[in-house]
């Protein structure tokens, strides 16, 4: 980067503890070439003036601003420019100077017209009101003190995990409120006779009477453990409660003035909570996405970011500070190493490239085979569990019963435990750069985790709709014999998954983390224990765990309306358990996640989970006929049929509008217009990029000219002085 014209201005290789400044090397009184000149340039001074309107305190050497102009004129020039723009706090001055500035501003204000004065005053009071409101809402923030102390002790990477958990608690609470407002509240009002309303039940059509048989399982002798089994699996006494879809066999609620359409409300609540989740996640991730988009474009800012924003200024703990230093050392070394590897990759010969790509293809096929094997195992386990669940429950032993009920959950958990290990081994042979390796492994694990739920749901769906020449099945559209109320049964599966997931998290923390910590502290003489060491708080695994739980909640909330409330409680308990586990059993890992990376990664994974949850829901709502024996949609073919029926009750003008919007005559031109708009923005972005490149080149040329001129000026001054 150094050119011959600049070499005179280079300070040379700076010593490690730079003691000798350039100024001291020269003769007294003579200004040192580059920096002092640069400080006199008009561009430098105007930028400095923009930052501070009042001169900072004098320093002996290296003043930021040279005292050239008088104090007063400086001030007024700044004031008239900035009167309406910034508030006083944003000036980089100390408090006494800000006070003077404010007094001057107030005297200036007297010269304004009445209208301007009133405008200023109202905008100021509005801002003050907003601030007070913001201050109040920060007091209401849940777990603020806990998260702050975690941040101080463990850094911002782990703190972002706990903020994410808090976000999920709030999301689930809001989802439950939506469902409560739209579905549960009218039912409760009617049931407990708070308002004068009645339920509306439409009698079944004759030909469907066979489809409405819904035998409630009740056995003569009830063993004690059957209550526990019912609690854990949602069968028995829980099946008819408001926990599951089957309880809501109501077609409307008749209030005094109008009839509340409960099926429509049920459908709208589902769509509303999915849309709300999507919007909230996208809003939260917009910033991180924008920055990551810029980042990936140019391998950009990784060094600037890590060096200027690398130190967490809020660390107060000595051991955490040492850890941060070592993680920075690790990270910067890893980055330089990655740079070297990337260069090595770029210098590969074509033979090596072919060899590497064929190896990668082969290994990816192995990965797909592993995934297929796991999915098949889950499929078999689900079918086995469903078939054997129908057998006589009291004939089985307690443990065997529970095993069969929870077989899909167990297989899923085992698969999710084994596959990351396999993936980590495989990726070594694929010869990627270290950063990419980590990202690809995490992506594969994410996909594995979330796809297992989908496989489970699709297996259930295939069982529900598979008819083996059964006339009853063909009449009703679904397998009525095995699944008289199939939505409730899907809800039960989701409920079981959630309970099992919760139990596993608690069990792993209590039975693995704490004993491990005890072993390490008390039996530290054993070599094996030393090697194994304390638990590390692995962020990706923990995040995948809670995203998995949230995906189950999203899918299950349609089939089991109280599931979001259970999820809220579950996440609250998990917060405290994880916090205790972090504080008492974990040591921080040397590989630290950056907060910005983490936030984007968490929300991306959550978005993938949401998309994977929407697919089974849309298929079950629009394709699979709703069960005729239970639920609010017994008088409809599929769940979605509520919407056309509601539209047909609108006034005719609105009806024709709706029909127009959903017809092809509207959709095709709309799609074409959107494509055109997208192409326009892409072209605009391309043009901006070109302009940026040109401006950068121009800037560096101008700077070269400037340095050349300064050098000439310096030489000319030297000549003048020596004569």
């Amino acid at each position, binding site marked *: *980067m150094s050119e011959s014209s*600049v070499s005179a201005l*280079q300070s040379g290789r*700076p010593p490690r503890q730079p003691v000798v*400044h350039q100024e001291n090397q020269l003769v007294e009184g003579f200004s040192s070439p580059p920096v002092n000149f*640069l*400080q006199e340039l008009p561009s*430098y001074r105007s*930028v*400095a003036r923009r*930052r501070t309107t009042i001169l900072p305190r004098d*320093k002996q050497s*290296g003043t*930021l601003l040279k005292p050239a102009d008088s104090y007063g004129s400086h001030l007024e020039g700044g004031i008239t420019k900035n009167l309406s723009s910034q508030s*006083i*706090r*944003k000036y*980089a001055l*100390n*408090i006494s100077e*800000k*006070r003077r500035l*404010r007094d001057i501003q107030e005297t200036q204000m007297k010269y304004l017209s009445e209208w301007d004065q009133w405008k200023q005053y109202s905008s100021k009071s509005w801002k003050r009101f907003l601030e007070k409101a913001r*201050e109040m809402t920060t007091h209401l923030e849940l777990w603020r003190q806990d998260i*702050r102390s975690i941040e101080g002790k463990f850094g*911002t990477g782990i703190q972002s995990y706990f903020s994410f958990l808090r976000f999920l608690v709030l999301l689930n609470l809001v989802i439950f409120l939506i469902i409560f407002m739209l579905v549960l509240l009218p039912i409760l009002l009617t049931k407990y006779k708070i308002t004068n309303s009645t339920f509306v039940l439409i009698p079944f059509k004759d030909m469907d009477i066979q489809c409405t048989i819904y035998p409630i399982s009740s056995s003569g002798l009830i063993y004690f453990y059957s209550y526990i089994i019912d609690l854990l699996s949602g069968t028995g006494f829980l099946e008819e409660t408001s926990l599951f879809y089957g309880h809501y066999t109501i077609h409307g609620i008749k209030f005094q003035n109008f009839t509340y359409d409960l099926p429509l409300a049920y459908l709208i609540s589902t769509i509303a909570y999915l849309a709300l989740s999507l919007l909230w996640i996208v809003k939260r991730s917009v*910033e*991180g996405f924008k*920055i*990551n988009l810029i*980042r990936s474009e140019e391998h*950009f*800012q990784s*060094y*600037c*970011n890590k*060096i*200027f*924003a*690398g*130190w*967490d*200024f*809020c*660390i*107060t*703990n*000595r051991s955490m*500070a040492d850890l941060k*230093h070592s993680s*920075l*050392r690790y990270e*910067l*070394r890893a980055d330089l190493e990655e740079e070297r590897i990337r260069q090595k990759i770029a210098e590969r010969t074509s033979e090596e490239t072919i060899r590497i790509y064929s190896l990668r293809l082969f290994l990816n096929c192995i990965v797909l085979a592993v995934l297929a094997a796991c999915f098949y195992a889950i499929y078999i386990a689900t079918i086995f569990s469903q078939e054997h669940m129908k057998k006589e429950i009291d004939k089985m032993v307690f443990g065997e019963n529970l095993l069969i009920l929870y077989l899909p959950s167990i297989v899923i958990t085992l698969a999710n435990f084994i596959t990351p290990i396999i993936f980590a081994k495989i990726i070594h042979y694929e010869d990627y750069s270290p950063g990419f390796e980590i990202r690809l492994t995490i992506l594969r694990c994410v996909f594995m985790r979330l796809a297992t739920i989908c496989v489970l749901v699709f297996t259930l769906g295939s069982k529900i709709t598979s008819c083996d020449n059964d006339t009853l099945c063909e009449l009703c559209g679904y397998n009525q014999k095995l699944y008289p109320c199939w939505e409730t049964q899907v809800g039960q599966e989701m409920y079981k998954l959630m309970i099992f997931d919760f139990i596993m998290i608690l069990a792993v923390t209590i039975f693995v983390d704490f004993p491990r910590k005890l072993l390490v502290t008390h039996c530290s003489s054993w070599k094996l224990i030393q090697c194994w060491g304390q638990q590390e708080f692995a962020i990706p695994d923990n995040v995948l765990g809670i995203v998995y739980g949230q995906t189950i909640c999203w899918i299950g909330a349609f089939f089991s309306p109280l599931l979001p409330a259970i999820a809220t409680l579950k996440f609250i308990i998990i917060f405290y358990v994880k916090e205790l586990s972090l504080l008492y059993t974990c040591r921080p890992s040397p590989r630290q996640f*950056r907060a*910005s990376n983490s936030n984007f990664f968490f929300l991306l994974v959550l978005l993938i989970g949401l998309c994977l949850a929407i697919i089974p829901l849309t298929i079950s709502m629009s394709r699979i006929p709703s069960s005729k024996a239970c639920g609010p949609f017994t008088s409809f073919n599929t769940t979605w049929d509520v919407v056309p029926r509601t539209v047909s009750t609108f006034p005719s003008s609105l009806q024709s509008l709706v029909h127009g919007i959903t017809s092809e005559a509207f959709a095709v031109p709309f799609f074409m217009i959107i494509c055109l708009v997208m192409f326009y923005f892409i072209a605009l972005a391309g043009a901006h990029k070109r302009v940026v490149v040109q401006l950068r080149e121009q*800037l*560096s040329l*101008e*700077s070269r000219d400037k340095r050349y001129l300064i050098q000439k000026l310096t030489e000319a001054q030297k000549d003048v002085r020596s004569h």
Partner: protein
Amino acid sequence: MGQCLRYQMHWEDLEEYQALTFLTRNEILCIHDTFLKLCPAGKYYKEATLTMDQVSSLPALRVNPFRDRICKVFSHDDVFSFEDVLSMASVFSEQACPSLKIEYAFRIYDFNENGFIDEEDLQRIVLRLLNSNDVSEDMLMDLAHHVLSESDLDNDNMLSFSEFEHAMFKSPDFMNSFRIHFWGC
């Protein structure tokens, strides 16, 4: 470490400080309390001063590798008055705006105080961040060159304030990391 005369802060002063800084009421009162505990005995809080060592050894700054620069930038004549401490807390508070933080970050990182962040400053920053004795010269030069190649737009081997501002506006971690919670408020 004695106690200053325990004057309650006047309500007007509190309002004024709230208007002039980014701190909330609780934070200002918290800082006031702790300032009183640290300052020498028998002085009104508006006239008392703290030395740079006292401020450097606050729990919030004790382990910060840049604490000497922070103290240098925010102090006047090598001492901290109450208002200097408030300014410092205001810049590092959560509510402060990015332009203010970037301004002071530039002053803190400019070790030789010549108005630019040059290679020498960058190498010092890296040394402070790594805090180790076996950092090779090559690594320091490498890192400094990488930073300059990313953000030095006019190719003069230094970062002017505009270039630094431009780089920090795009940096995703800057706002999160340039925060200090003073005195557990």
